């Protein structure tokens, strides 16, 4: 088996999705590509089915909020792992905070089910086509998405902690 390099993966991805890849970088040595949100299923299922690359494992699926990044505040991150080559790949997509709707990854990876529920729970990202998109970790009564940056970390209901005693 040939030794798989990042350059080879970049070359393969460019050959198939050249026009739609928005960015390729390697922060901390982890190959990262940014694709448009409509392309997420297409790119990831191609990587999954590709008999050479074999990115058959979804290590993680999560979100991140960049409030300064106007028009594309919310990001969804997919970490793929190819066991055969022991190589990892990160795929990011960006959506606006006003309309954070992306296609669900559950048709490709069953394991995306709970991870997308968690991402919805904390970031409020709507995964279209998800079979059961409801909160998974926080209590059902919660009326906001706590990982969005506009919400403070601290519990807002308590009145016995004065900010000045807590260095705030």
């Amino acid at each position, binding site marked *: 088996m040939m030794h798989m390099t990042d350059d080879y993966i970049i070359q393969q991805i460019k050959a198939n999705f050249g026009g739609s890849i928005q960015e390729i970088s390697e922060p901390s040595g982890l190959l990262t590509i940014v694709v448009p949100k409509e392309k997420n299923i297409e790119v990831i299922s191609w990587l999954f089915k590709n008999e050479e690359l074999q990115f058959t494992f979804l290590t993680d699926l999560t979100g991140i909020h960049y409030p300064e990044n106007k028009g594309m505040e919310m990001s969804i991150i997919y970490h793929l792992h190819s066991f055969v080559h022991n190589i990892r790949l990160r795929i990011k997509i960006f959506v606006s905070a006003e309309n954070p709707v992306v296609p669900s990854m559950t048709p490709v990876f069953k394991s995306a089910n709970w991870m997308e529920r968690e991402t919805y729970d904390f970031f409020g990202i709507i995964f279209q086509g998800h079979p059961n998109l409801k909160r998974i*970790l*926080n*209590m059902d009564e*919660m009326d906001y998405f*706590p990982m969005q940056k506009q*919400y403070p*970390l*601290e*519990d*807002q*209901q*308590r009145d*016995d*902690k004065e900010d000045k005693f*807590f260095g705030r």
Partner: protein
Amino acid sequence: MSTENKQEIVSDGYKGPGFFATTLEKVVGTARANSLWPLPYATSCCGIEYMATMGANYDLARFGSERMSFSPRQADLLMVMGTVAKKMGPVLKQVYTQMAEPRWVMAVGACASSGGIFDTYSVLQGIDKIIPVDVYVPGCPPRPEQILDGIMKIQELVKNESLRRRNSTQYKELLAGYGIE
């Protein structure tokens, strides 16, 4: 309890050769105080300290709490030890409501008492937000000696409270304030 060396458990009363007379309330209160069945509700490191408290070195059994009750139906004392997440809140409240009167609650450690260092959206900021608490034990986590001190404070309450605390208007108002019954 007539041996001179022994500390008397019931202090108020009339004592003579071969007899001791006191009120029924004192006797029942003493019996309750020295046979408390604790229900451990342990969620984190304070629970480990509680295990040490039950162990041979500190030996909670010396205070009459030999038997832990893992059913709330038979428990007298709910000991909440550790961080309670908001999602866990309704479970804790249900455990409390399943306990029969008379019942006491002890919040062990900073988290159960006030949320502790976890001043965050997902953690209940003290169990007294959802159930009434009799004794708070500070510490993060408290040492077994502190937990024993808390138990002794509970025993003082049990000995000196009215046997029918549950019938008092104050107690009823307290429970109503928490929306229990």
